Every structure is written in C-alpha cells, then in structure tokens.
C-alpha cells in the first residue's frame, strides 16, 4: 500500500515540477518567474524526501535542508533585485 501511495505522490510532485517549469518558461511577468521557481524548489524538496522514504534511508535529509535554504535565499535575492535594482545596499 505504501508503494502505491509513493507512486501516486511521485506522480503528483513530478507533474507539479513540470507545471512550474512551464510557468517559468511562459510567464507573463518577472515576479511570476520567481514565484514559479520558488514553488519548484518546494516541490523538489518533497521529491527528495519521498525518494528517501522509498529507498528507506535518512541520507537525503541534509540535501533537502540545503535545498530549502538555498532556495529561500535565492528567491529573496531575486525579488530584492527586482525591487531595488541591487541586492546588498
């Protein structure tokens, strides 16, 4: 039963990443692109965690943690760059 649920979750998060990728390519404005990239980071964290469940190891949580940190910093830096034209004033 867990195998079927894992397959379902993999499919859902994979479709989510593909939707975000489509949004990054065909976005109406630049903040939309930042939002789509941030959502893609969130979906990728979930994919890493689900992969860790499926092979039964806790090895990948550091990767997910680092991914969350770098995703947050890059989103805020990009939004700050759009907002002020400079990142560190």
């Amino acid at each position, binding site marked *: *039963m*867990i195998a*079927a*649920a*894992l397959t*379902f*979750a993999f*499919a*859902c*998060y994979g*479709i*989510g*990443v593909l*939707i*975000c990728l*489509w*949004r990054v390519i065909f976005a109406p*404005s*630049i*903040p*939309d692109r*930042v*939002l*789509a990239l*941030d*959502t893609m980071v*969130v*979906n990728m*964290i*979930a994919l890493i*965690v*689900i992969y*860790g*469940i499926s092979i*039964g190891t*806790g090895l990948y*949580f*550091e990767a*997910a*943690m680092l991914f*969350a*940190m770098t995703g*947050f910093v890059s*989103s*805020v830096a990009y*939004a*700050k760059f*759009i*907002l002020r034209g400079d990142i560190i004033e």
Partner: protein
Amino acid sequence: MFAEILVAALLVISGVFALVGSYGLIKLPDLMTRLHAPTKASTLGVGGALIASMLHAIVWRNEVSWHELLITLFLFLTAPITANFIAKAHMADKLKSGDLPPTGTDRDWATLDLSEEPVQPVMTPPGQPGRPS
C-alpha cells in the same frame, strides 16, 4: 498496519495538495491571487510528506529523526517571507501611487518611494506613568 494506512494516507493527501498548489499557479488570474496557491497549498503538501517521512522512520527503522521537523519549521517560516517579497516586487513593478490608499504620513509606500534618504522613525511622546489607559 495502522501506521501503514496513516503513512499512505499522508502521502496521498500531500500529493493532492501539492498538485492543487501547482495547478493554481497556472489557473488563477492575477499575481496577487496566484501567490496564495504555492504559499499555502504546496507548503501544506510538503508538510504532509515530511510528517509521513518521520512516521516511516519511527515505525520501520526504529529511529527518531528530527531533520524533517527542521525542514518543516524552515519551510513554514520562509514561505510567507518569500511571498511578501514577491508581492512587494509586483507592487513596485505594476502599481502606481493612485492605486493604493494614502499612508497617513508624509512618506509614500515603501515599494513606491525610491528616494535615497533613510526613513526617520516617528517618535511618540511617552505616556503618563502608571496604569496604561
């Protein structure tokens, strides 16, 4: 058996929530409404997947892992900050001064006020000592 049902249900629910969040990203009409889908639904979906991972580690591998709780805490803290910054970038990009209500001070909105001088804090006089009215 009960833990298996719980982990499977959490995984399915988290997948559905994440799919709804990602679909709302392309479905909703405006950026201000589009901000809601990823920051709420996708964050909740990731939280469900991380709780499922914690339960799986406790039941099947007999170890308590706190990394998931750290990731959940970090994501729940950072998602509103990112959404706020993207909303501010959108306001600076699209909105003009007439679209927003007045601020009540002599300064304009922070996303529209692009002057170089730093904001002076407004000092309020201290009240009378004793019980606050």
